[in-house]
């Protein structure tokens, strides 16, 4: 190593000011400019045995694409990224990099400075590519094999893209009217603009993938019926079934599951009501129950709709918040109130069935439980009421059951997840699965990883091209 010292800090990514962004749905983080990206890329040590690659669930060749940025060869950087990750513009924005690739970066580990801003650089390259026009992909000769993919979330889209690149004829069945899964109905515009998802989906269409929207498998066709028409089936149906707390008052008007609230706002564009037809309640005081990414997204959407006051109620402490640190920080900057170590007891309503508030109790953390997390217990006589006219329950989701309900010989585990081995193979021959439907709620990139692995296994299962 030369004595030439590199800067220790990564450039801070420009963001919309909190005072402005709290009332619009435009993207919060604005991305690096060319100068910042090149400077940050030059900080990378181009390690011989780069640990960062192992930190990425799909194994992006991180040092290589970063070197190409440093050399200002952005087209090559884009090719490097796309060879392992078919949705870089999305991952660059929403991957929890701080616990994945960036967590193991040598620079951060050695205390020599910030880890390389891998996500920010990935986003830069993907956005550059999108602006300069994505080259039409070369398509391989058709194999004559047909694969059905159920669900157009990150898992299904990745599997579809990979299979199409192998020359198989792929049909995606998606129950909603738009492709993208959580990327379109859950994650808000200000974190992931829908035009970016649409562009990525369009790219996959150009690979020759047939996208059948409004097609609910289990209703319009069963998996068994798909197996008559296709050589294999991939299930990427996600974990979208909302959980409620099971406390009094949950059916009051003004109480939403996070999924309903976010679907109205993001997929149906209720923030543009009445130009768009779907309404959503704009509370004067909104309470969001939960501490994960979903809770942060719901709270920040509520704020942007014009709710005067938005409070997050979470039963554990700051350190236990499962949401990404960056998003918690963003939420705080925007003025979201955090009531930690607080647990709901019941939701209160008026005589017309409308929410008026929530009764809560203070919690304290005691000895860690089996999962290693501190178990919160109520502090006696600390009951109190928080006024609210909208309450959003963001305490998690479970697997969508429509497919397993209608496929009797598909093995499922205790909480309804579909059982699959490390290649994605399920108990049913010819049927593969991956993403949240197998793991329960996880991440975009892990779902993509599962889609990719399954695509390879499917290719092997169907045995390459049909002999003519």
């Amino acid at each position, binding site marked *: 190593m030369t004595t030439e010292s590199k800067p220790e800090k990564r450039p801070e990514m420009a963001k919309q000011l909190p005072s402005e962004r709290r009332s619009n749905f435009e993207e919060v983080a604005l991305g690096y400019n060319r100068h910042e990206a090149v400077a940050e890329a030059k900080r990378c040590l181009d390690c011989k045995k780069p640990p960062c690659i192992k930190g990425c669930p799909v194994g992006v060749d991180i040092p290589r694409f970063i070197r190409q940025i440093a050399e200002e060869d952005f087209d090559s950087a884009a090719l490097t990224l796309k060879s392992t990750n078919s949705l870089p513009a999305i991952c660059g924005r929403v991957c929890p990099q701080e616990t994945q690739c960036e967590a193991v970066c040598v620079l951060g580990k050695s205390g020599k400075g910030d880890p390389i801003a891998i996500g920010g650089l990935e986003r830069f390259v993907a956005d550059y590519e999108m602006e300069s026009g994505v080259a039409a992909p070369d398509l391989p000769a058709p194999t004559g094999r047909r694969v059905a993919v159920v669900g157009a979330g990150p898992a299904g889209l990745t599997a579809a893209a990979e299979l199409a690149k192998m020359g198989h004829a792929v049909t995606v069945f998606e*129950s*909603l*009217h738009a492709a993208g899964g959580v990327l379109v109905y859950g994650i808000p515009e200000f974190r992931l603009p829908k035009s970016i998802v649409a562009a990525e989906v369009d790219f996959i269409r150009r690979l020759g993938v047939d996208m059948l*929207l*409004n*097609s*609910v498998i289990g*209703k*319009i*066709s069963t998996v068994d019926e798909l197996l008559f028409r296709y050589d294999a089936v991939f299930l990427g149906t996600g974990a*979208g*079934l*909302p959980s*409620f707390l099971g406390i009094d008052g*949950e*059916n009051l*008007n*003004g109480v*939403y*599951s996070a*999924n*309903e609230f976010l*679907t*109205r706002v993001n997929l*149906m*564009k209720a923030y543009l*009501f*009445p*130009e*768009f*037809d*779907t*309404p959503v*309640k704009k509370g004067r005081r909104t309470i969001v129950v939960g501490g994960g990414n979903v809770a942060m997204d719901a709270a920040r959407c509520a704020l942007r709709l014009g709710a005067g006051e938005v409070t997050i109620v979470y039963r554990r402490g700051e350190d236990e918040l499962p949401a990404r640190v960056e998003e918690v920080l963003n939420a705080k900057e925007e003025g979201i109130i955090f009531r930690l170590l607080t647990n709901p007891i019941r939701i209160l309503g008026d005589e*017309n*069935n409308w929410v008026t508030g929530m009764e809560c109790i203070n919690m304290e953390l005691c000895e860690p439980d089996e999962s290693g997390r501190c178990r919160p217990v109520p502090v006696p006589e600390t009951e109190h009421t928080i006024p609210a006219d909208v309450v959003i329950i963001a305490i998690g989701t479970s697997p*969508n*059951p*429509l497919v397993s309900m209608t496929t009797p010989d598909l093995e499922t585990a205790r909480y309804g997840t579909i059982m699959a081995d490390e290649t994605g193979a399920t108990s049913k021959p010819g049927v593969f699965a991956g993403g949240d439907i197998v793991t329960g709620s996880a991440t975009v990139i892990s779902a993509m990883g599962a889609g990719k692995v399954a695509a390879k296994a499917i290719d092997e299962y169907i045995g390459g091209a049909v002999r003519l």
Partner: protein
Amino acid sequence: MPFTIREKQELVPTIHQMDVAAPLVAEKAMPGQFVILRIDECGERIPLTIADFDAADKTVTLIFQEIGKTTRQLASLDAGDSIADLAGPLGRASAIERFGTVVCVGGGVGIAPIFPIARGLMEAGNRVISIIGARSADILFWEERMEEASSKLYVTTDDGTKGHHGFVTDIVQNVIESGERIDRVIAIGPPVMMRAVAGVTKPFGVKTVVSLNPIMVDGTGMCGACRVLVGGVTKFACVDGPEFDAHEVDFTLLMSRLAMYLPEEKEALDYEAAAEPTI
């Protein structure tokens, strides 16, 4: 791919029939199921019951009443036009078995969804006594169809302009009290009507089923907008229903939840009115 409207007619003032080309839905549809449609990019997703289906013709028939922004916009479309999205068949199918004697009650626009159920029950060998009611004779539709699909048909109007002067519940009461053995009642219509039917049959212990119509978004179990309380347990009407045991349903909750967006529905209509060209 958009879904093309094959035929469209106004059955009676403000109630329309629309046959939409949807081959896969038509092939799989069963009585009691519904679709969710969205007219265009800006549209809301709304549920409508499949009132009839023709697998050979590859169409589903929808009957809807103009009540707000979306249903009015739908009414303005004609044969040859298309709607952007239509997903189905959703919900559980109605139980069609050989029950014995079944009373089918349809109120207002609820006559449409009761029709395929009555027909199915007839085909399954039941004696079907149908009771259809409307506010007035001029908004009563599908009388002949119901005649064909029933062993016996009663008509009621609130104002006495046709058939029995009064409510469908009067006839339900008479039929039960006539001493004929009734094995099952199925009622579809406005929540007040369904609640009233449940009230009439309960003392007699006659199994009664209603089809609930809460507000929905996805229709596949992913949002919980459609929660209803049945026997003290919260259910999602789109996947657990839409049919439930009438004697267990909390109708008060259903009705209050249906009123959730009243101010917004008015705002949507006002916005629409303001946008209309003034010629």
